[in-house]
């Protein structure tokens, strides 16, 4: 069973998307802030990381930077899942090594899950 680390501070989104991913047969690990997210990534070595950009304790871009620096986490694909839409942010994320950038408000959960499945 593939492991997905979901780093997102909004409880409503964790519940909704987390439930759907579990229904689709994935193991879901939740982190509600950037610092915990980074620690869990190193500890649990997930197969995929869903990363929000606006996070407490450690912002998403910093988490991404660290993930891509550490040997143990740098090859884990990262999907940015955020509501920030600026081109500058998209480019920054892709330059830092994110695999895909999705604006939450533009997708249904089903569509997000489709994208996730495509990565595997």
């Amino acid at each position, binding site marked *: 069973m593939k492991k997905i680390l979901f780093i997102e501070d*909004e409880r*409503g*989104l964790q*519940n*909704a*998307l987390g*439930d*759907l991913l579990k229904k689709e047969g994935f193991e879901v690990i939740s982190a509600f802030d950037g610092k915990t997210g980074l620690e869990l990534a190193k500890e649990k070595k997930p197969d995929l990381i869903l990363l929000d950009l606006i996070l407490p304790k450690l912002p998403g871009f910093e988490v991404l930077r660290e993930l891509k620096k550490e040997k143990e986490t740098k090859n884990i694909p990262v999907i940015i899942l955020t*509501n*920030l*839409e*600026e*081109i500058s942010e998209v480019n920054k994320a892709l330059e830092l090594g994110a695999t895909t950038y999705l604006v*939450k*408000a533009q997708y*249904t*959960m*089903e569509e997000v899950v489709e994208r996730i499945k495509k990565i595997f």
Partner: protein
Amino acid sequence: MSLKNIVEQLNLFKQCKKYNLPLWQCPQFLFLFLGIFIIASILIIYAIGVKYINEPEVVALITLLVAIFLIVLDALITRSFERLAEASRMKSEFIKIVSHQLRTPLTNFKWTLESLLSQKENLISEKYFEYFKILKENSERMENLMKDLLVVAQIETEGFFIKKEEFSLEELTKEVIKEFECLAKKFGVEIKYYFQENLPKVLADKKQIKEVVKNLLDNAIRYNRENGKVEIKIEKKPKYLYFEIKDTGVGIPKDDQKYIFQKFFRSANIMRYQTQGTGLGLYIAKKIVEKSGGKIGFKSQENKGSTFYFTLPLSKNFRFL
């Protein structure tokens, strides 16, 4: 002649009021003042120069004082423009922040509703299902408003980019018509289209133009009568493609016609037909079409209907066919 002057002056005060600035900070007023001051000082310096022609130092001193005053005035004008630019920037920044902050709870709504609605078979009775559908529709309305506001903010800060590509306008239009089949049926409106044969491709931003066509078709359906008609036509002209959409609807009152493409403008008769609209659609459509190198316009008669049209430049390869 003097009446015209008075009218001009009144306009100036109206302009400054629009900016919410005191008169001495308003650029138009300062420019006018500067102009008058320059003319007056030239005359004064000439008069003084003639009088003190034997004492050039006096003339030089007065000229220097005038120059200093002009520089101070210039600085004031520049400052007032900076203030306006800053206000505009802050407005866009605000829109960006607010729309992001609003998107977060909206996404919560959207995804939670998706979870609930997907469990229809097991948990939810018919009545609750209808309520949830209404919640979903309304969260979509808020989302659309958010999207429109962001586009408007981008347009105003020149952060709005058109990605030009070749595409078939008639294929795009057929797609949009298909998407609106449900809505047209709901309003009892029939959609007909006539596309010329062998139409060339256009060069424009496909995604944005799709939004324009959707907006025009949405209006044509909503402001129509029961059993009304919508006719869409696409024709080739020498240097561009001409798109026209005609409806048998309520038309636009003559007094409102000059405001139609303005931001947030909603004609008085509109509220009866489309309480959901934001008043941004046509403003955005005009900007998109103009940025693509085309023109947009309309003809309308109250109670008879409206005809909206726009043109798009042909893709280079087809220009000389």
